[in-house]
């Protein structure tokens, strides 16, 4: 038995034991997103050893890797072939794994233009709460056989089973990229971001912070050059570092705790009551470092047609996500039971 089969057998045993003893398992990749979601008290199921790229076909634009594979490893391999993960995932630490990335469902600055993690996931192999190994989806872009359980796993925070292997769609890296900066107030920036997004420009990221709108253009060199005058503003140097500091939240604007993530329709008007936001995703995400009560923020997000997440805090988080309405909450419980009848993964993290 090779080390991966041995690991699988052990994992199955852990799940059966946990079910028998009515204990819960919290799944951990690199621990880089430990802060995200509700604080949980459960035994740890470590994924780091279940790693390695299983298949990578640059011409098929697909990659399959075990969940414990570090994102760094995958991104380095893709870069050798001038390809990338379309959703530009935040790592939040050197140990970040593909499994953690998919389980948290967090995407980076390119999301509005190239899709989210869930959009790129093509198939998964999982171990469910009965310790059964199941496969859903596949390695092809178009596949409508059976319900889309692969995407159901994305963002489920490990509460529906253990992601073992994940197949994702990858994309070629753009030849050219540049970032322009324009000075403007937040409400004007939101309107501008939406207007640009409604016109055929090669946008790949936008953010407003501290009185300035930053726009990244990606595509062929010629396309980027042609688009620059339509945007205006000044070109910034070191633009890769800038977007990395936004994605990884290392920029000072995002250092405040608690840090709230408001996900709202892109055209929503800018709320200033909670403070000055950082506005990402063409207006779709508003980050606030604020002490405003959770209920108030959730009500504000709800009024705008969105939801609020307590993303980071100094204290252990009890209620990170917006509570679900009654029929949806019931449905969630039933779906969890369908995959995990003994509640082994029902840690309450989501």
């Amino acid at each position, binding site marked *: 038995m090779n080390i991966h089969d041995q690991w699988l057998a052990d994992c199955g045993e852990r799940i059966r034991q946990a079910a028998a003893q009515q204990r819960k398992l919290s799944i951990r990749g690199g621990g880089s997103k430990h802060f995200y979601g509700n604080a949980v008290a459960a035994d740890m199921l470590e994924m780091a050893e279940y790693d390695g790229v299983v298949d990578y*076909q640059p011409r*098929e*634009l*697909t990659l399959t890797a075990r969940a414990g594979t570090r994102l760094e490893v995958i991104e380095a391999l893709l870069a050798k072939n001038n390809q990338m993960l379309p959703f530009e995932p935040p790592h939040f630490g050197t140990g970040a794994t593909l499994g953690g990335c998919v389980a948290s*469902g967090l995407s980076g600055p390119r999301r*509005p233009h190239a*899709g989210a993690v*869930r*959009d790129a996931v093509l198939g998964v192999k999982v171990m*469910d709460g009965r310790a059964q*190994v*199941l*496969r859903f989806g*596949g*390695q*092809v*872009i*178009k*596949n*409508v*056989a*059976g*319900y*889309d*359980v692969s*995407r*159901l796993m994305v*963002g489920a925070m490990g509460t*529906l089973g253990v992601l073992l292997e994940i197949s994702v769609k990858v994309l*070629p890296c753009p*030849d050219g990229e540049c970032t322009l900066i324009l000075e403007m107030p937040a409400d004007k920036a939101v*309107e501008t971001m*939406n207007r640009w*997004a*409604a*016109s*055929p420009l*090669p946008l790949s990221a936008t953010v407003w912070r501290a009185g300035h709108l930053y726009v990244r253009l990606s*595509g*062929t060199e010629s*396309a980027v050059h*042609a688009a620059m005058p339509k945007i205006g503003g000044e070109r910034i140097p070191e633009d890769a570092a800038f977007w990395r500091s936004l994605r990884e939240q290392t920029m000072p604007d995002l250092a405040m705790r608690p840090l709230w993530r408001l*996900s709202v*329709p892109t*055209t929503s008007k800018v709320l200033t009551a909670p403070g000055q936001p950082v506005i990402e*995703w063409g207006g*779709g995400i508003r980050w606030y470092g604020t002490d405003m009560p959770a209920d108030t923020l959730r009500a504000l997000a709800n009024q705008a*047609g*969105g*939801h609020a997440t307590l993303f980071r805090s100094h204290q252990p988080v009890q209620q990170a996500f917006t509570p*679900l309405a009654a*029929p*949806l909450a019931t449905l*969630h419980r*039933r*779906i969890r*039971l*369908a*995959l995990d009848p003994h509640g082994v993964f029902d840690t309450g993290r*989501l």
Partner: protein
Amino acid sequence: MSALPADFLENLRRLLPPDGLLTAAEDLAPYECDALSAYRRRPPAVALPRTEEEISAVLHLCRLHDVPVVARGHGTGLSGGALPIEHALLLSLARLNRILSIDPLARTARVQPGVRNLAISQAAAPHGLYYAPDPSSQIACSIGGNVAENSGGLHCLKYGLTVHNILEVRAITIEGDILTLGSQAYDAPGYDLLALMTGSEGMLAVIVEITVRLLPKPERAQVLLAAFDSIANAGVAVGQIIAAGIIPAGLEMMDKLAIQAAEDYVHAGYPVGAEALLLVEVDGVNEEVSDGLRIVYEMVKACGATEVRTALDDMERAKLWAGRKAAFPAIGRISPDYYCMDGTIPRGRLPEVLVRIAELSEEYGLRVANVFHAGDGNLHPLILYDANQPGELEKTEAMGGKILETCIAVGGTITGEHGVGVEKLGQMCVQFNSAELEVFHALKAAFDPPGLLNPGKAVPSLHRCAELGAMHVHHGQLPHPELPRF
């Protein structure tokens, strides 16, 4: 005598406007099948509600009387998903056909399920926007049906399927709950039930409203035609184009029989006599398209293209696409009947799969025309047959089943965009093992505990799989060891 209880029908009649319930044989006939017309069954009654409230009331009544419900859009589905079920009410959503709002700045449209796919793009056009998924039936198919089937189209590699292009769905469960799945924002709290609902073939809930994402129309789109004297060369060219870093908006392949039939039908100017043809559409900003076309030109030439042409204007571009979009009816002209398959394969395995299809064609004595969404690996072999010849449909289905099993064997799937419906239930037993099928059944039960929504479609029962004897060996184990065999 209707197959539905008299008191149920009486109550139903009271819930709906006078023209909202069909029970006369001549009125029911059009609802006997969807576009997979080989399967037919007359529904006992058809409800035609106009509002969400009427749908709620109908579902409530069905729940009370334990009457199953088959939801139907415009009946263009290709897998029998909307095939009537005995003793089940057919619920047509065709009359919910209003575009409720378009927000040009936010690039969204809120629509009712009976709105036609193309009508959305037409309504968005004045704003320079469009709805990307474009199944070949887009002039007729409904957006609700598109969500139920997770429909694709010609531009999936770059722009995705339905699941990538919708934001929010409102649906009513058989228990009467109104669910909002997804949101008007980029994400929603909880599990991604929007993805689960998309492609669920009317099994989980009845969709009553959809918010779709609109995209800006590209500044320029240009299509290049390349002819090859071998399918293998065309296949290599597809790989080379992708390897060069080009993501074409459309990348289609047709084989000799499909080329000829399409040319005879719409006179698109296709090179008759070529073994394979590629249509490559590149879109984006002007400069990007010029660069992309140059690279595509070099690639197809290097792969031995015998003829390369670029459409000079939009009219010529439309003409080139017209041939491809009319491929199915074109085949319909040269054969009394045809059976359309829908497997997806990794692109690189195309040559060997086509060889296998040719072998099967020989073995079964049935001609096959191949139309291939080469960009996303979705293969549509069209098996030509004559339903009036006794036994020929059965032979065709058997051959189709073999083709789908070939798709699974090379790492693909039995359906890329047409859905399972009633048509591919047997192949589902090959693609999934019993534990996986049980998860599907459990998920259906989570949404639909009494099992009244489109029962028996999309996911086969374990007994059916055992009886079919599809020997799916999964992880070295025989399927369904727990079930008796006959």
